[in-house]
């Protein structure tokens, strides 16, 4: 009871003061002169001579450089990636969403649909206000058309703006997460580094064998 334990506690906090802090700064990082020079790949002295204004700013402690959060390629972002070319409009995702927040309207519209054609998806609304990013819609997609995205900056000022529409899905950058897509992982795809992914890249490309086709189409139907 002489405060020995308290002094030990003081040593722990002092040790943590000397250690590097573990804060990850986002969306930008405050840097000093050394940090800014390092970020631009220059010797601090050379940097100070070449860009004196930026150097003074950095020395005063008001310089900042953009920073990105470390993120695994499996990260389940809410900005969905949808491949129009792959989607048949089967609405498996809408059926199996636990919250029922996906609304899909395809275009049968009395047209004669020929074999090999896909439905025209007119409405593909995802209500992100209620989405919990569980990824079941991605899991059940039989054609690998829907993927979780890699971004997460979806804050909006009003609820209606949280709705992802089909136009937005078409426009969105195609950076799919590798969540539930082992084929992407096998190719070493990383949404942060590898850039956008084409629709041809993201499929499973498993050519079914004749036996598999027979089992699916013949055996199960005759049973």
């Amino acid at each position, binding site marked *: *009871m*002489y405060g020995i334990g*308290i002094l030990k*506690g*003081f040593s*722990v*906090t*002092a040790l*943590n*003061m000397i*250690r590097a*802090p*573990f*804060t990850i*700064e986002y969306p930008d990082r*405050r840097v000093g002169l050394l940090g800014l020079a390092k970020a631009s790949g220059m010797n601090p002295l050379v940097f100070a001579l070449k860009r004196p204004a930026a150097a003074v700013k950095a020395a*005063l*402690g*008001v310089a900042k450089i953009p920073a990105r959060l470390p993120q695994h390629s499996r990260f389940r972002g809410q900005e969905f990636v949808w491949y129009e070319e792959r989607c048949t409009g089967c609405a498996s995702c809408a059926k199996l969403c636990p919250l029922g927040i996906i609304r899909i309207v395809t275009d049968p519209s009395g047209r004669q649909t020929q074999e090999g054609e896909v439905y025209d998806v007119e409405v593909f609304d995802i209500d992100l206000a209620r989405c919990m990013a569980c990824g079941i819609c991605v899991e059940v997609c039989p054609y690998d058309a829907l993927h979780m995205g890699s971004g997460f900056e979806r804050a909006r000022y009003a609820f209606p703006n949280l709705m992802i529409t089909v136009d937005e899905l078409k426009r969105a950058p195609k950076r799919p997460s590798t969540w539930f897509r082992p084929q992407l992982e096998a190719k070493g795809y990383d949404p942060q580094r590898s850039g956008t992914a084409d629709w041809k890249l993201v499929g499973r490309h498993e050519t079914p064998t004749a036996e598999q086709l027979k089992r699916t189409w013949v055996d199960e139907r005759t049973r």
Partner: protein
Amino acid sequence: MTDGFLDNAFFRNIYCNLASSGSDRCAGGGPFGDGLLPPGWEWLAFLVTAFVTVFVVVNGALMAVNLYIWGERRLLGRLQGRLGPNRWGPFGLLTPIADLIKVLSKEDIVPAAADRLVYSLAPVLLVVPVLLAFAVIPFGSSTWAANLNVGVLYLIAVLSVESFAPITAAWGSQNRYAMFGGLRAVALLVSYELPLVLSLIGVLMIAGSLSLVDIVNAQDVPFALVQPLGFLVFLIGSVAEIQRAPFDLSEAESELVGGYHTDYSGIRWGLFQAGEFMSTMVSGAIIATVFLSGWRGFDFLPSHAWFFIKFAGVLFVMTWIRATLPRLRIDQITSFAWKGLLPLAAVNLLASAVLSLIWPRPSVGELWAMAAVNVVVAAAAIYVLGQFGPKPGERPRPAVAPALGATGREGAA
């Protein structure tokens, strides 16, 4: 007016430039030639000097508290492995200003049941005494606002006014959480005032004066070494007196939400925060002055720098304590004051009394001798106290009156 008034270089510069050279206080005029005012107008010179000084000290304190809040937050961040505020301005220095603007622009809510006058008075009661306390602190070898010959007494008197603030706030806001906080604060402040003052008396005996300037002058050896026990008691006592962790039970966030300032918002709440930080600064300044030989140091730095270094060191220790220790319970805090600090302060007082009887006007060598004796006394006293101190886990569950237990059930049903 005492003539100690003109020991202060800052005063002298202003006053003697204004007053005529013929005046009895500054014969020969100021640094910039003769006085600007004709003879007989010394009262105006005095008034202007006093006003300027008060203005500088008060605003200096208010600016310094901003800097201190920033420093404490950065330091707390680093002690916790974080960065601390670094967004506004260089290294986040403008964060307190941003906070101030935010606090000023928030709605000032007065609860409907509150006693308006008392409610509004409480923040002022916390801030004003702290500002008054800055008056007697010597910041440098010849920089102070007033050199009172009863400086320590003045400090104690002014700072005990501060203890009214929590109970006033609690009473005024008519909130049960606040009432808990206010009553706890009163119990705490009353308990710790006594060891705090007793530990100061030892210093006064050795220095032989109540004036803070004289106390600094007497410290050929810092009194923290001459009076280790007194220093320890005063440090702990002042942490308790300003109600910071581990003695922050009056605003105990995890228990009482905000304690006595639960209902305050806007600038009133801001005044509470500023007042708390300022009282921390005052405590730091008092410790630096009374126990760490104030502005005295080696010659290669000016006296103000020495004061600032010691002051910052004390504040660092206080922040460190705040970052490390959990809170004590109310009965543990009061029993620590009465059974722990008070006997220690009394032992210190006794030892100092005996020692100052032996060496009435101590020289440097005698001060070192006192330090040696006092270190032994301190170690022995702490050891003996530790033998009789409370052991964890021995406290039985307190009995509850059954009648009271019954009322609660009925009320809840």
